[in-house]
């Protein structure tokens, strides 16, 4: 069995073979790749094109095995420098449609489960994710928005409305909360996971039924650093279909089943646990004072006012600095993503339109 691989660094190609039934361990495979390419000193990310033409990562034994078994007969392996990887490139139709991924795979549980290395490089920051796909009805979507010191506004508005529910007494109109507006350039819009007229069902695991618009607003703001909204999208055509293999006859299909099937479900999907939300919460900042005595011997004493001014400025200065740092990193990462995305988009060699049915059997080297 042969494998072809392309290196993103300088588009270098190698072809080698593996035992389809005993591919061995991922670690060995990784070493082999580094060895073949003489890049032993580099951190790389390995990906492969699955049968649907989706770019998927290889970073553990499971998905390595899956990748090898799905080769027919050729497995295209893509190698990227670790620091250039954009995880939003993985997933559905990432190779066939050079478009921003609708589903981002990510895992912020990295710290707790370090052995499953399917996740983000450390210098990237999650922005949003779809979670709990396995436990939610297909018509619902649970979206997590991360806003760690990010400069971008959350950027959406909600409103009152009525929604139709199926009840034992037939259809019934019930009041509901809906997304009414997206702020262009805001976090909510940029994720593409929320849209105007989506009905908000839960905020951080708490149902909004029976709550007023103001209550829901307050709940969202109180959770704004780690907001998890369960919505019923107004556009139900983009739903994730879990049970069946994708039917996606058109290239428009946004089904992400393939990617999920390619990896053990529990590793890919995040489930929402309230304590998890608690634990990753930010901490309050405590600044210990200098504990130097401070005097105001007289009214409007200059020394006293300057002293307290120093004290007063210390906190805000530090806060300011933290904020700036955060913002910088945020902007950088955003910039990275954008660069990558645009490079993918503009580069004609990326137009790997792989016809349905798989990769050509002759194993022609694909020029990138």
């Amino acid at each position: 069995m042969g494998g072809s691989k392309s290196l993103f660094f300088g588009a270098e190609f190698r072809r080698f073979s593996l035992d389809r039934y005993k591919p061995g361990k991922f670690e060995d495979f990784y070493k082999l790749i580094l060895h073949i390419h003489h890049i032993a000193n580099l951190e790389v990310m390995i990906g492969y094109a699955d049968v649907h033409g989706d770019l998927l990562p290889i970073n553990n034994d499971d998905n390595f095995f899956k990748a090898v078994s799905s080769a027919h007969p050729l497995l295209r392996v893509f190698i990227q420098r670790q620091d250039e990887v954009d995880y939003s490139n993985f997933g559905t139709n990432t190779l066939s449609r050079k478009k921003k991924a609708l589903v981002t795979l990510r895992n912020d549980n990295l710290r707790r489960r370090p052995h499953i290395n399917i996740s983000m490089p450390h210098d990237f920051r999650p922005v949003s994710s779809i979670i709990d796909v396995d436990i939610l009805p297909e018509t619902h979507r649970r979206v997590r928005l991360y806003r760690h010191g990010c400069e971008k506004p959350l950027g959406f508005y909600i409103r009152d409305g009525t929604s139709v529910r199926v009840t034992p007494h037939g259809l019934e109109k019930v009041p509901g909360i809906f997304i009414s507006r997206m702020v262009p350039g805001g976090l909510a819009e940029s994720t593409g996971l929320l849209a105007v007229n989506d009905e908000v069902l839960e905020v951080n695991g708490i149902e909004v039924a029976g709550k007023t618009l103001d209550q829901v607003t307050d709940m969202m703001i109180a959770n704004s650093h780690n907001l998890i909204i369960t919505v019923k999208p107004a556009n139900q055509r983009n739903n994730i279909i879990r049970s069946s293999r994708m039917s996606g006859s058109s290239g428009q299909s946004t089904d992400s089943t393939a990617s999920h099937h390619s990896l053990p479900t529990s590793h890919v999907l995040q489930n929402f646990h309230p304590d998890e939300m608690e634990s990753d919460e930010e901490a309050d900042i405590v600044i210990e004072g200098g504990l130097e005595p401070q005097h105001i011997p007289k009214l409007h004493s200059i020394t006293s006012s300057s002293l307290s001014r120093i004290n007063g400025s210390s906190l805000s200065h530090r806060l300011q600095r933290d904020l700036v740092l955060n913002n910088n990193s945020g902007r950088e990462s955003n910039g990275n993503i954008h660069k990558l995305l645009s490079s993918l988009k503009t580069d004609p060699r990326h137009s790997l339109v792989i016809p349905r049915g798989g990769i050509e059997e002759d194993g022609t080297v694909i020029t990138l």
Partner: protein
Amino acid sequence: PSPRGFRVGVPTLTCLSPWQTVEHGFPSQPSALAYDPVLRVMAIGTKAGAVKLYGAPGVELTGLHKETATVTQLHFLPGQGWLLSLLDDNTLHLWEVCQKEGCSHLEETRSFGLPGRPGSGSANCSPGITRVTVVLPMAAGTLVCLGTEGGAVYFVTLPTLTLLEDKTLFPDEILQSVPDEYRCGKALGPVESIQEHPRDGSRLLIGYSRGLVVLWEQSTRLVQHLFLGNQQLESLAWEQSGKSIVSSHSDGGYMVGIGVSVSGPFPCKAISKILWRTCESGTPFIIFSGGMPRASYGDRHCVSVLQGQTLATLDFTSRVIDFFTVQSAEVPEGGFENPRALVVLVEEELVAIDLQTPGWPTIPAPYLAPLHSSAITCSCHVSNVPLKLWERILSVGEQQSPRQSSAAWPIDGGKNLAQEPTQRGLLLTGHEDGTVRFWDASGVSLKPLYKLGTANIFQTDCEHNDSLNQAGEEEWPPFRKVGCFDPYSDDPRLGVQKIALCKYTAKMVVAGTAGQVLVMELSDEKSEHAVSVATVDLLQDREGFTWKGHDRLAPRNGPLSFPPGFQPSVLVQCVPPAAVTAVTLHSEWNLVAFGTSHGFGLFDYYRRNPVLARCTLHPNDSLAMEGPLSRVKSLKKSLRQSFRRIRKSRVSGKKRLNASSPSSKVQEANAQLAEQAGPPEVEMTPVQRRIEPRSADDSLSGVVRCLYFADTFLRDAAHHGPTMWAGTNSGSVFAYALEVPSQEKFSERAVEAVLGKEIQLMHRAPVVSIAVLDGRGNPLPEPYEVSRDLAKAPDMQGSHSMLISSEEQFKVFTLPKVSAKTKFKLTAHEGCRVRKVALVSLASAGSEERLENCLACLTNLGDIHIFTVPSLRPQVHYSCIRKEDISGIASCVFTKHGQGFYLISPSEFERFSLSARNVTEPLCRLEVARSMATPKLPQANACPMALLQAWPWVLAVPNASHPPCSPGSPEEHPAAFSPGPIDSPNSSMENPLDTTGDITVEEVKDFLASSEEAERNLRNTSEDEARPTGILIK
């Protein structure tokens, strides 16, 4: 949803039983008044449909109509414990004082609506013609007469409220007795008054709007007398002996007998009600409301009391609702009524006038305190007040307002069964005019104790002497200002924002709208001293800010004299002079801390030295400098002025204005049409809410929300010491370690403050409260509480913790190293925000000794949540205040023992209790001598069969003092009544138009001419002559 005064919610914990117990203050928007001379209780009805009974202090009964409709009339059936209420939806309701477990309660037992006229469609379509204008329960207690807009008089049995259809007196029947000339095709108009003859229950005096007054014999259905008035009638009253009547008219005149008297030569406003009370000392009292000269005093709200030559026109600041006199219930034949007191209900207060003391002084009311005589701006509760302080406050309060009248409160019916309050509770209210009022909140009735004014310390725009009082000498009629309702503050900067009182040292801090912080001390002697002034710059030379708000209040120079009471020693002026947003006092350390929207300061009032000033402004916060509060205030000021204008021009209480004017009838009809069509589906643009976390530079982020003193561990775990804490609107907490010299060295060493910690809550929500818990998790005691053996010493061995309540969550941190221990994220879970929190100790239902410390929290939705401390486990939550009632939520104060108060109207505090062991509610008993029981009929609507059965039963009543007028069998009671005093020759009622004889056109003309002539004559007479004597013309 649940009626006030009744228990709400279901307790889920044995020791927690939330209920609303009693209302303190003056009912909002009163609309009706009645008095029962036998039970000696009065009833007040409100526009919200509430009925409240008041007797002796502590005797209070409350009822609420199911319908939220204005109570337009209230009438007692004297002594029976029955009360009839008429609502503006034209329904009549019977309330009963019933006894349960030894206590009296007020319950609605029946209701009744007059059916629409046959043929005029369904009964529910608000027929104007059957709109009830007059309700008169007959003295016999078996019948009630209803006069209507259409001029008909209906008779309804009591207590079954069954219409006696065949008894109805239609105006046609009366018109048959009226000469054609008077009739001239015009209707008689609505019934304006029905009065039962005081000595003969079968004779009714019926007055129609057009001016016709009829003395009608009920049993024979004959008109005995006709008084063909041509002046629109307002009200009627009998003289007590039944020998004479007095009527009042829309032109401001009144007639005694058929004489005419006009109160002035100028066009006058209507006299809406008139009373005639005989008096042993000779000349009777004539008391009437209104009747002021239209042009000059048409805007005054007056009740005039006239006795012989003595006239006093009581000048109220709000509209007169109704009035009554208090006298003994039984007046013997030929005796005198001798009214003891006149009780006037005006829109904003209740005033009682002592009629037996010369000069007619007012009698201070033990309840119905006009809390809102100036708008309440803040309130504060002090529980367990030491007896010594209590007595001193009582004493200075008495010196402040010496009693003018020796008379006891005249309305003293019923018996207060409530136990003597176990502890003294003091409620302090700060007002817009710069006063702080002290109220006794220990029991059911909130009694005023003392009033502290702060305005005299400052030079204000307006001088305080009232011009009205001086001018009174030359005016006619002789106005006398009564009551204390004066909602207009001379200078809004005087408004009191925060109050702190130390109950052990009698020190108090009062902080106001213009950044003034007054440190005061209670003194039993009057004093003349200068107030020392200290200025604290809270901007701390921060550049780029200019204050655009109001100026500071300029203090008066030189020594000022202060009466006994709380006297200011130091005035600390914050710069810029923004409103003080937080204040706290530590009398043991002689420190006061205060905060505004710009920062906070610490002041040593012993050495009169500022200790610390700290700016909390965020560099980007520009709004704080604009003085937004001042802009609001100035808008308020202009609003106040326009309201003042509106009030002046407002027409004094025209009765049934809405029903009678043609344009409003059209509106009514339109409204009905619209209702029939169903509510139109209005497509409204939906309200949107932006989801954005608050950022650091939100406006007013520097507002200091809370300040706190504690003796705790701030620097290290080994040494505790004085600390001061401040929390801001942007979620910052500043903690200072204080170096406080020992008591002996206060004068030698200065207090020092060192910044110990700054904590920034990441969710940045405003910090509502900070409290330190001791090693056992109990809140730290107040200053002096331990040294005076009034509280257990705090546990200083175990590690302390700090409870910070923000608008979004509660968090307990360890001390001295600040790390989060437990938290409860209220907003994230419930979507509600914290408005008020308090640490309260609730007595467990099992044993009085076991006190549980809880965190009580009122949210912006009006719910109260209870959490354990320090574990912050939610225990129970229940709804308390409507979420729309923003001012109610903002006004809420908790007491230390699980009670609380909030304003349900500008003038009323609702008291509630979180603890089943600590409840203040009215428990009282009214002894009712009811002549019959209320039959428990399911329906009160007229039913002929029920009527026939009910009637003989009513006849069989043994106690009825008058033979009941039996409409079913007039032959049983032939016109056997004695001719009565009406026909006696000396009666001024003797009338040329006796309907029993033939009436000629000439006679009518003569009558009309004579009255016209009298009127003309009077107009020609001088004012002086008309004033004292204008009673009897004929």
